[in-house]
């Protein structure tokens, strides 16, 4: 199904709005995982705005598709997305880093409507997805389970235990993403623990894998829409991304894994945002 120009524009605008939420939260309320959140923004925008079956008025609806943010530190992107989808009002972003905020530094399912699992400890997402997907199959339900992981996160053994389980059990209702930005905390993934053969590894584990540009909403949309890629196999989308995407000085920069902006950076960030935003303000 080809993506119309209008739809593409809509998705890009939503992604822009989410980026703005991420950046403003850090500027206004200090330290957040900006780099990590900005690299998965376009994927979340496409999933939540046009792919997943969701009911904003009934977030626990039995018909919904599930999303698990395995790399929970990317939560600012999730919060921004849920706000843009209408789960909460934008003012919630102003509680970030404050006492009893519903939007802590990692997502908590008991604090924010629309969050299905409390994540933040890496390597939990794929096992959770397997359990959900298996349960849905046992119940003869056709809901999909989306899960987003980091590339550094692939170091966790639990992911590989789950990867084997998913294919063994033919869980083709799992659609996993790896946000492959090439960086983690101590350095590039290449230096820390090489992840260059992820495609081959997952294929050897019985998955069907596609590799895309994780910032091209059209490509993201087309690829997710075609999942499961093969009947009876779990699908993996390796999304090549740029950590810190949309914040020039943070792009591909190890120092912006998390970000506590000073005044100068805040000004540059806002200038850059408003330049990009002109595209829609003139509409």
């Amino acid at each position, binding site marked *: 199904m080809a993506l119309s120009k209008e739809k593409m524009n809509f998705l890009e605008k939503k992604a822009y709005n989410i980026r703005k939420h991420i950046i403003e939260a850090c500027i206004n309320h200090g*330290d957040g995982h900006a780099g990590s959140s900005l690299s998965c923004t376009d994927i979340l925008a496409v999933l939540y705005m046009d792919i997943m079956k969701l009911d904003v008025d009934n977030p626990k609806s039995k018909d919904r598709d599930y999303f698990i943010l395995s790399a*929970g530190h990317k939560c600012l992107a999730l919060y921004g997305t849920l706000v843009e989808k209408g789960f909460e009002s934008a003012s919630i972003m102003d509680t970030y*880093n*404050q*006492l*009893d*905020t519903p939007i*802590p*530094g*990692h*997502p*908590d399912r*008991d*604090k924010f409507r629309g969050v299905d699992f*409390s*994540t*933040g*400890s*890496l*390597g939990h997402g794929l096992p959770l997805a397997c359990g959900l997907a298996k349960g849905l199959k046992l119940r003869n339900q056709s809901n999909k389970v989306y899960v987003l992981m980091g590339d*550094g*996160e*692939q*170091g*966790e*053994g639990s992911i590989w235990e789950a990867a084997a389980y998913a294919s063994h059990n033919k869980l083709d209702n799992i659609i996993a993403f790896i946000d492959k930005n090439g960086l*983690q*905390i*101590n350095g590039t993934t290449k*230096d*820390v*623990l090489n992840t260059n053969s992820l495609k081959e590894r997952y294929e050897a584990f019985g998955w069907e894998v596609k590799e895309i540009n994780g910032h091209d909403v059209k490509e993201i949309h087309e690829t997710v829409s075609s999942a499961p890629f093969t009947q009876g196999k779990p699908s993996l989308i390796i999304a090549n991304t740029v950590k810190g995407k949309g914040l020039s000085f943070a792009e591909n920069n190890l120092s912006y894994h998390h970000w506590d902006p000073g005044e100068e950076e805040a000004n540059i960030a806002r200038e850059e945002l408003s330049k990009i935003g002109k595209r829609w303000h003139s509409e």
Partner: protein
Amino acid sequence: MNRIDPRKTFETTLLELGKSNENILAVSCDSAKGAGMSSFINEFPDRYIEVGISEQNGVGICSGLSQVDFIPIIAVITPFLTMRAYEQIRTDIGYINANVKLVGSGGGLAYSTLGFTHEAIEDIAVMRTIPNMTILCPGDGYEVDQALRLAIEHEGPVYIRMPRHGLLPIRAAENRNIEIGKSETIVEGDDVLILATGTMVREAVDAAKELEASGIKAKVESFMTVKPIDMEKLVDLCKSYEHIFTVEEHSKTAGFGSSVAEILISEKDMGQVHILGVEEGSTRVGPYREILEVYGLTGEGIAKSIKEKLK
């Protein structure tokens, strides 16, 4: 008074120890900087073992390294070390008495803005069950430095629970004498006994000041070593007080207070134990000092709890 950044102290001491003992290795699971290992790694790149985000693997690797006489120090955000790799720590470190030093980056509520995945209010509880494990909970800059030195001197597994936020000194360094397994009297007083560990010692000192203003004289005893606990001193002290308060930045379940209670229960004529800490399963989030207030774990909060009990 200036607060000391515990990570900087850790970093300086680690570098110094690394210079005098070439068996020391820094093992990291993709979190070297946050753990205060950067200076060591820059100085001794060959003694830096990076395992990526794989904590269970990291602990197993440490056990293996220790078998050829290296002294691996592995530092990881606390839950991912003590809980994720619990069974590896138990089987591959504890039971075989491996000479590995485990450092929990950010004990207790240190990561209070990051939510319950990163907070660590169960680490003392789980580490306490591991045979041969020594548990050190430093509460100021001096103790961070000493804990690391003592851990390296000690042959066998040691768990160091690292604070993360700026620390005020518990007392002047020249008046101190710290040994593994020995508690230390910080404030003298006859009316109530406060037993505290780690970051809560300094808060207990503040509480004692507040109590004094209300005419209550509290004795504050510091337990940087939670295991093996100073049993002799503990039993001796607890005979002389009607009310004993334990304070920890940890769940009230199975932590420092519980370990005190376990000992006192089989002794005669002991005072009554009251455990101050965090309610099991609490998930409040927010800035660190505010969260300590919420749980009544500031000097003021501790004094208030004590006054209420004594009423």
